[in-house]
């Protein structure tokens, strides 16, 4: 731990303060570059906590994408590879196949995973690679300045859809998570979010399950995390979370879709095969 932080902590403890919450040792001291209010920081922490709690820090190899989380390797204190744009699932495939005793996870955004890397994502999933994929969906290209992503809702404004996404121009938003759930190679497919404590707890449980599945050699686990992109959406963090709940969640419903290799009860075919565009609600 950073010496200044350690000294300050000791001072507070000497003053009678009690330590109730601390940084997980699987995260480094590096100051994250993420915008305040963005879901990346929380999601990083959840992945790190799961690695810590499972006691597998020395067996983990992470793969970061191109996009907002390109520098994830600076924040996780585990071995890490930075992949070319969209190729993380291919990179992870080889790491795991050549090193079956490691825990391999990819961490990608929607542009990386669902646009340029669609082929690698679908084929890694369809091969049933025994890896964990974390997919942060904020409906926009955050890093490059807020352009339309494959998950941008119809009607949603972005730097390249200033009048809102139009089906006739831009086609339909893509629901990667539902799509992957239909493949026999996926073992666990879920969508979670991190905008409040209850959601964070559920998201952590899902990430834990995804790593436990890998430990049991069950195949591919896919955890989508819905996140706001308050700077890209040009809202305050609070307003962005509200907008996410009001608009993203009706189109990208939260919850497990496939558990233990089986589509969950209550998830019917109409949910998996859409006959309408995902559209901004208001």
């Amino acid at each position: 731990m950073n010496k200044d932080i350690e000294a300050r902590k000791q001072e507070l403890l000497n003053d009678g303060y009690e330590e109730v919450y601390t940084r997980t040792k699987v995260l480094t001291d590096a100051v994250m570059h993420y915008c305040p209010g963005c879901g990346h920081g929380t999601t990083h922490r959840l992945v790190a906590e799961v690695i810590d709690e499972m006691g597998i820090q020395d067996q983990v190899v992470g793969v970061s994408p191109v996009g907002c989380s390109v520098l994830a390797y600076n924040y996780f204190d585990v071995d890490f590879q930075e992949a070319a744009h969209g190729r993380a699932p291919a990179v992870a495939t080889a790491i795991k196949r050549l090193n079956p005793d490691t825990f391999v996870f990819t961490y990608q955004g929607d542009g990386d995973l669902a646009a340029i890397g669609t082929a690698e994502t679908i084929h890694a999933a369809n091969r049933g690679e025994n890896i964990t994929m974390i997919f942060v969906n904020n409906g926009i290209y955050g890093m490059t300045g807020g352009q339309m992503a494959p998950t941008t809702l119809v009607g949603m404004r972005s730097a390249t859809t200033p009048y809102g996404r139009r089906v006739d121009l831009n086609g339909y938003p893509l629901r990667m998570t539902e799509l992957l759930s239909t493949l026999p190679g996926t073992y666990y497919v879920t969508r979670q979010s991190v905008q409040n404590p209850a959601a964070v707890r559920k998201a952590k449980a899902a990430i834990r399950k995804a790593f436990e599945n890998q430990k049991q050699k069950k195949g591919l686990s896919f955890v989508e995390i819905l996140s706001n992109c308050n700077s890209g959406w040009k809202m305050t963090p609070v307003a962005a979370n509200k907008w996410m709940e009001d608009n993203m969640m009706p189109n990208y419903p939260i919850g497990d879709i496939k558990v233990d290799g089986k589509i969950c009860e209550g998830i019917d075919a109409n949910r998996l095969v859409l006959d309408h565009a995902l559209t901004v609600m208001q």
Partner: protein
Amino acid sequence: MARELQLMKGNEAIARAMIASGCDGYFGYPITPQSEVMETLMAEKPWETTGMVVLQAESEVASINMVYGGAATGKKVATSSSSPGISLMQEGLTYLAGAEIPCLIVNVMRGGPGLGTIQPSQSDYFQSVKGGGHGDYQLYTLAPASVQEMYDFVFDAWDIAFKYRNPVLILSDGAIGQCMEKLYTRDNVARWSEEERRANAPWGTWGKPAGRGHNIITSLELDSARQEVFNHKLQAKYAEMKEKEVRFEALNCEDADYIIVAYGSSSRIAMKAMQMAREKGIKVGLFRLITLFPFPTKQLAEVAKRVKGILCVEMSAGQMIEDVRLATQCGVKTEHFGRFGGIIPTPGEVLEALENKIIK
């Protein structure tokens, strides 16, 4: 397998050499004229003997990124393809070079541009040695001229790749890939043990043990000052290769009035043309490039001082000739002769070109 005389296709030799040289993993995608590489590997099932992993990927893009992931754990990882597939891999290659990941790529060239043809060609010289992808990088590039060299260069590739932490390219073509020749196999080299992997690739990402920092494999450095320092480091590495790792073969160059410069299949044709010329009393030598990068600049310049003319033979519109002219500072008459689009020149055509373009 020990040293043994066998009859084998060039592509099969690549595959067998991978297994015999202790390769840990191969990731590929079918493309003519090199599909026998993966077919041989799949038929041999090395995962049951040496433990080598073989996987057919969904594309060349995925293949080269699988090479990235696997090789970045400090293991010996390879792929092979042919020209259009190698074009798809260029992004991966520049990332591999930028992240300093040792690995082996085999290009069994076919004619281009575009989908081109499935017949042999040598028109990927520029792509191979002038940086096919973005950024200032080089691949150590070996050009085999026989099935034996297809086999041997796989063994050599691992030494160079790990010594310099750099990708190695074997630049072959459809003629050598598809032809059958005799070759002597070598004693098997065992795959590295866990201890050997860790000793040979301490930078690898296999899970951070207690007591060492996390290893990071990346080609990203947003700080320009540091990125420039890193680029200087890469250039120093390439300079060292130029100093220490140049390979070539000079045949009959001592008394030659004229020399032919060629590599790969073209050098085999040129060798016959050289013999035909000598039978006619024309003193011709052959300067065969074995490494295309590093190019044998000094060595060729030395030979060029003593000759009246140089014919470059390449199954292309004339790519290698640029490096030949640079090496000789255009001090000697130098012309190109080539067939392309998948046509292989005959020795007679080469001799005729020598007589018409150089000697006359």
